[in-house]
């Protein structure tokens, strides 16, 4: 059986180790998980995981510095691609974070901050285990129950122009799109690498997915 190569994109930020460890934990024998910032290796990979943490500006800056902007956009358009947290947000056209910043524009839309009333008991960041309501069927939902809980930590959320790509939604004061999918791309606001069994199942599904 041919070996399958899955690249975890390393742009020098965030906690890659959790993501690569969770993927390795669920990887079939013929699958190799490679943490890399080499554009050639990303081009060669059969599938790509794009994790992310921190602020949008720092993420975009790091992608720029490491020469990863083009390889990431290309992978997001061509092969099974899993965006996680900031790896979802920077796929959008623009983020309101850091006084506004232009992002990768793979998915038309904006990223905006949670806004609550002054005396609201709701906290920002949205941190902890919340439910994802699956609004569309998808191969990556295989063996994950409707409304399962995943671990979130973020202060901004995505607003795609095309609501048809919303694949999961979550409520924290407001109901926001927590999963987007389009062709070969699946991107999630929560952290599957920190979401115990549901998260591991999502990695398992992704590693078996052909992007269709």
């Amino acid at each position: 059986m041919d070996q399958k190569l899955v690249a975890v994109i390393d742009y020098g930020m965030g906690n890659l180790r959790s993501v690569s460890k969770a993927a390795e934990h669920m990887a079939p024998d013929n699958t190799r998980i490679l943490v890399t910032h080499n554009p050639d290796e990303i081009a060669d990979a059969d599938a790509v995981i794009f994790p992310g943490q921190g602020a949008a500006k720092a993420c975009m800056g790091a992608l720029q510095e490491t020469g990863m902007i083009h390889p990431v956009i290309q992978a997001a358009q061509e092969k099974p691609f899993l965006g996680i947290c900031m790896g979802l947000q920077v796929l959008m056209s623009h983020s309101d974070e850091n006084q506004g910043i232009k992002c990768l524009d793979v998915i038309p839309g904006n990223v905006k901050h949670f806004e609550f009333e002054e005396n609201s008991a709701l906290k920002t960041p949205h941190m902890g285990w919340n439910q994802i309501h699956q609004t569309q069927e998808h191969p990556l939902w295989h063996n994950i129950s409707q409304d399962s809980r995943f671990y979130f930590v973020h202060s901004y959320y995505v607003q795609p122009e095309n609501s048809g790509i919303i694949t999961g939604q979550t409520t924290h004061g407001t109901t926001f799109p927590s999963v987007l999918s389009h062709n070969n791309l699946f991107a999630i606001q929560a952290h599957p690498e920190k979401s115990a069994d549901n998260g591991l199942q999502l990695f398992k599904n992704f590693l078996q997915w052909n992007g269709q």
Partner: protein
Amino acid sequence: MSLAKRIIPCLDVDDGRVVKGVQFVDIRDAGDPVEVAKRYDQQGADEITFLDITATAHDRNTTVHMVEQVASQVFIPLTVGGGIRSVEDIRTMLNAGADKVAINSAAIFNPAFVKEACDAFGSQCIVVAIDAKKVSQPDEDNKWEIFTHGGRKETGIDAVDWSRRMACLGAGELLVTSMDRDGTKIGFDLELTRAISDTVSIPVIASGGVGELSHLAKGITEGHAEAVLAASIFHFGEHTVEEAKLAMQKEGIEVRL
């Protein structure tokens, strides 16, 4: 359907081993952080916090190795506190697989460190730990101050003001421990927890004083905390995390089961 309130077991770690008597009937080595963390994960812990109480640099390297071991087998958020003094300390822990670090005294000696840490790694992984003691008399308005050195040394800093300041510097979360209640098993200082939680817009974790399950729910309903941290009630096999969650659910609190 909304965000669940969290239960966080806390473990003291010395030289890469769990100390302070963790007792599970069926685990072979109660000092093995991987076994203990796995057990709490199976019981439904929402996160795990490790408090590194080691003194030497050598022991600290052992802790880093321990975090690596745990992070490769337990897939829930891990926080490491104790001895986090520099951006490099944080980077080391995050690279080892920690998701968050708790900064305590280093924030007091150099508050700018909190901002530096948040700018470098993002607010989501920076927890500021606040050890507070009540300093007001019973007939006065409530007032708490920050203490260091395990509650022995006063700083004169007002705990509520300090919380607001830490939130402004970018902290993603506050771990608020009542040094009056820590180890007493009589419950959280709910007034302290509430005073801080109602002041800041970031999540607050209540800590210090849990002796029975009902104390946990009170931390949420009366203390307005987003999460509750406890050590001994879970370690000594008195209660499982699952029992704690069921007890919270009975009080109308949303939990992850």
